[in-house]
């Protein structure tokens, strides 16, 4: 196993420089392995980021900043430049330009595809650096780098082609933490400023920057509570906060949020609190009066309570925005489902069941507490950080599957500390002698200052060779299982991008179901340039990118009402849906149907969310209850409710739908994507429903239903 070899190699290279070279080589190999392990598949996803990058590369930075995208959110459009995190696109754009300058004119697409693996290599190195700050064992850093490189929890978001913000954000997260620890340990403004710089980069890259914004103040606060206030803390924190906040405010999407919203308030509060402490500290050193000091501490506490009260008042008065819904739902876990169904409807916002933890981290998930416990042994400032991070990281990961990503670094670091401690104890040739024993005995009488019960006795060492070899061998087996597990998970679960479904044929060969791209390519080639496509928002980015057609809603879920409108159109009867589609100039409707293949990620399975979201806006017109049978079941078969059977979505999915307002335009090979064309008005300007009703001799009785301006198109 690698850890063994590391140790052996470290023993071979006794010289300092030899070890240094070995470390660099091993680190480079780990980075290489972490890149290689991510190349199982290469399909770009999400396409929106790729599209934005292409726009950036084609039109330059300033145009990108002002980009108004009229091909999404029809007819509203989206101020894209001001509503995205530009870090990812700017990074790949910069790499692209740099490579061109080096006369390597690679396609921007290849830069985008390989960005995540390349950055995962950097993440491994950052994990190495961070771990080295925690412990004196060199093997711990290398192990952490290895874990970080191959842990499935991180691979899941960084395979080749996974071109999302997380691709670079995790590196930035780990590296910012490393710089923070470095700054805190040295009390250095330089490191603090570097930390702020990378924090700014992180803010520009991922909405998850709030994790740093909350974790660093929390760490500082815990240190203060422990009586660990020091000038080092003051210097590093204030440097980071002042510069980091300024940097973050440069991003248009963030703007003044750092001084206006609640999730940024802890950082501001601790900043103020530190000023107060520094002031008191100065006073205390200048006037060494005991009574006065007591008074001052009371004073400091009073100020803290007062400012907290002021914060609460300011929040309730509306000066400071309350917790944003997405963030708040992490604390009040029932909140999202009731108030913001869009957030709750995303599968990666679901809580995490235990198999997911084991799946993503395997061995590390229970070695992780061991490492955290070891941090209590020494309990220096940086160990407090790991402890705080561990508790909060695991809480967040438990609440949301997606946040497994922020937990993974600390698990790797703590796990590496634990495993390297074990290996360092058992992987030494030296056997304790009589003298060691006596020295230990003597030391024990003196007592040590370690506060941990289990660590009160001094270390003696391991006596017998067989226990050493047993432990080392079993650790090697466990680590081997871990590596195999990671490979298996990566190749099986995380390397099939959502747009391609891979299945195994009975003979073991791989069968690729490529329906999504088939349909998108058809749309792209065989419909009008500006044909508007209505679909559920999950497919918005893909349609915008792969099919290059305007969409009504997409994965940037900024306008709930618009999404609810689509939800309403999907969940209502045709008579209601048709005017909605006409109003929004919809040309085609795209649905995902998994019935033929037994594919569970289809629209019928997401349908309840559409209903719920629509119900949130039009409670009178859409009712979730009506989609459940009297027995409270959600049925899509013959026993489905009437409302269900009449809904547009159900008809498009199940019926051989050849009716009045829509006609089938394309169905992909395995029926996963079905595209319907919205029929135009007939020659006299009637829609098909009223025309059919007229022909049947019925009166037009639905005139009252069509309120609002109807956009008539003259073709």
């Amino acid at each position, binding site marked *: 196993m690698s850890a063994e070899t590391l140790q052996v190699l470290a023993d071979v290279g006794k010289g300092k420089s030899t070890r240094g070279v070995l470390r660099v080589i091993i680190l480079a190999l780990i980075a290489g392995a972490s890149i290689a392990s991510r190349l199982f598949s290469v399909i770009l996803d999400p396409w929106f980021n790729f599209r934005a990058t292409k726009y950036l590369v084609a039109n330059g930075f300033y145009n990108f900043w002002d980009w108004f995208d009229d091909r999404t959110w029809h007819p509203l459009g989206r101020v894209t430049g001001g509503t995205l995190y530009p870090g990812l696109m700017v990074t790949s754009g910069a790499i692209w330009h740099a490579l061109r300058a080096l006369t390597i004119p690679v396609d921007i697409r290849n830069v985008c595809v390989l960005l995540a693996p390349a950055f995962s290599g950097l993440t491994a190195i950052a994990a190495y650096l961070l771990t080295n700050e925690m412990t004196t064992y060199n093997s711990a850093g290398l192990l952490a780098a290895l874990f970080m490189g191959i842990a499935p929890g991180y691979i899941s978001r960084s395979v080749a082609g996974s071109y999302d913000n997380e691709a670079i954000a995790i590196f930035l997260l780990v590296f910012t933490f490393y710089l923070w620890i470095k700054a805190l340990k040295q009390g250095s403004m330089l490191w603090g400023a570097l930390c702020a710089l990378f924090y700014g980069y992180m803010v520009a890259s991922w909405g998850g920057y709030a994790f740093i914004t909350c974790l660093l103040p929390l760490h500082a606060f815990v240190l203060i509570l*422990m009586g660990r206030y020091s000038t080092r803390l003051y210097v590093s924190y204030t440097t980071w906060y002042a510069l980091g906040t300024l940097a973050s405010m440069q991003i248009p999407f963030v703007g003044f949020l750092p001084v206006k919203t609640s999730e940024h308030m802890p950082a501001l509060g601790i900043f103020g609190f530190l000023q107060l402490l520094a002031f008191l500290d100065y006073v205390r*050193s200048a006037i*060494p009066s005991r009574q006065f*000091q*007591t008074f001052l*501490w009371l004073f400091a506490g009073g100020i803290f309570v007062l400012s907290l009260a002021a914060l609460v008042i300011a929040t309730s008065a509306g000066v400071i925005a309350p917790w944003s819904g997405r963030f708040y739902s992490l604390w009040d*876990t029932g909140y999202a489902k009731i108030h913001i169904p869009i957030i709750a409807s995303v599968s990666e916002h679901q*809580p*995490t*069941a*235990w*198999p*997911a*933890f*084991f*799946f993503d981290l395997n*061995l590390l*998930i*229970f*070695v*992780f*507490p*061991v490492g*955290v*416990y*070891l941090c*209590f042994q020494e*309990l220096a400032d940086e160990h407090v950080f790991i*402890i705080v991070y*561990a*508790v909060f990281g*695991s*809480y967040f*990961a*438990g*609440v949301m599957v997606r946040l497994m990503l922020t937990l993974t670094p600390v698990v790797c670091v703590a796990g590496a500390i*634990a495993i390297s401690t*074990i290996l360092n104890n058992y992987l030494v040739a030296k056997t304790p002698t009589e003298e060691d*024993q006596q020295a*230990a005995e003597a030391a024990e009488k*003196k*007592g040590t*200052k370690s*506060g*941990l*019960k*289990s*660590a009160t*006795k001094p*270390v003696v060492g*391991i*006596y*017998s060779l*067989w*226990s050493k070899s*047993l*432990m080392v061998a*079993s650790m090697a087996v*466990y680590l081997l299982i871990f590596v195999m597990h990671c490979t*298996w998970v990566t190749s099986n679960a995380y390397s099939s991008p959502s747009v391609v479904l891979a299945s195994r044929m009975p003979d073991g060969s791989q069968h690729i179901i490529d329906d999504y791209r088939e349909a998108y390519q058809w749309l792209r080639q065989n419909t009008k340039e500006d044909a508007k496509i209505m679909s559920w928002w999950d497919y918005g980015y893909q349609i915008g990118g792969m099919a290059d057609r305007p969409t009504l809603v997409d994965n940037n879920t900024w306008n709930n009402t618009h999404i609810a409108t689509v939800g309403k159109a999907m969940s209502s009867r045709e008579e209601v849906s048709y005017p909605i589609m006409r109003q929004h100039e919809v040309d085609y409707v795209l649905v995902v149907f998994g019935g033929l293949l037994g594919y569970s990620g289809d629209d019928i399975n997401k349908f309840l969310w559409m209903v719920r979201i629509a119900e949130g806006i039009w409670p009178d017109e859409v009712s979730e209850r009506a989609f459940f049978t009297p027995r409270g079941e959600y049925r899509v078969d013959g026993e489905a409710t009437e409302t269900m059977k009449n809904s547009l979505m159900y008809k498009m999915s199940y019926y051989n739908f050849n009716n009045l307002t829509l006609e089938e335009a394309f169905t992909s090979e395995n029926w996963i994507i079905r595209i319907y064309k919205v029929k135009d008005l007939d020659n006299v300007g009637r829609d098909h429903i009223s025309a059919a009703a007229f022909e049947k001799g019925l009166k037009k009785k639905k005139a009252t239903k069509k309120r609002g301006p109807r956009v008539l198109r003259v073709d």
Partner: protein
Amino acid sequence: MRWLPAFLTASLAFAGGSLAAKKTSEERFNSFHAKSIASSSAAPIKLSDPSYRELTSQPRDYTAAVVLTAMDSRFNCQLCREFQPEWDLLARSWVKGDKAGESRVLFGTLDFADGREIFMSLGLQTAPVLLLFPPTVGPHAVANPEPLRYDFSNGPQIAEVVHTWIARHLPDRPHPPLTASYVAWPYILPIIQSRNIWAALTLISILLFTSGHMYNHIRKVPYVASDGKGGISYFASGFQSQYGLETQIVAALYGLLSLAGISLAIKVPRIRDAKTQGVAVLAWGGIFYFTYAFLLSVFRGKNPGYPFRLPPFV
């Protein structure tokens, strides 16, 4: 007024001290010790010329640690000001941790303003100076009665370092640890400051979260379910679902594994007896192995395609 009695005692003691210089070592210790434990902020004892002489006079059966400092802003002694709170913290924690005076250590501070003569007589040009006067009589007596001088040449010193230094020179005596807080919560404090308790809390919460407790909380999953044959099904089928009991079992497995890991990493190397150690390695290693193997088999139940297993759970 809490401080009033202490103040009175102190002033009385000073008066007494100057008059009755012939008090025995035992008496001197008792009076100074009483002074320092009188209030939470009485230690270290603020000394003056006469009390300094009394404290350091021989013979003594106690140790005296005295800082000679210059706090007056005239001297602009940055080091003095930085060290003073550390020294106060050290003295207070020590005194608080050793109310009975078993360690037989007294802490004092002599400011230049109060003890100009002493500074002169010692020929001190710099401040601060930390002097440690060893006992000359009694069980801890040392041969050389001269005070040990602490080296400030490395810049300001934090309380921990000085504490270690003092502790090093006081073998065979209790060394009350440093306590960070200035507020005396004699009962809550040990709990709040106990690393063991915090470590336990941290580990328990981590184990809770990583075994899917939040999922139970949000999804309101059933505790157990029937398997349809009258029995109880402990593990929900399917990768995305779980039962309450199931997560508790998993948390227990994780906890057992972590405990084994901690024992192997920390406890076992500290066992002095070779035979006991061998048994411990075997026991914890075995527990780790079998629990892990069992966990893998449980996971395979949840995810039938999972290929890895360890005997005996195949």
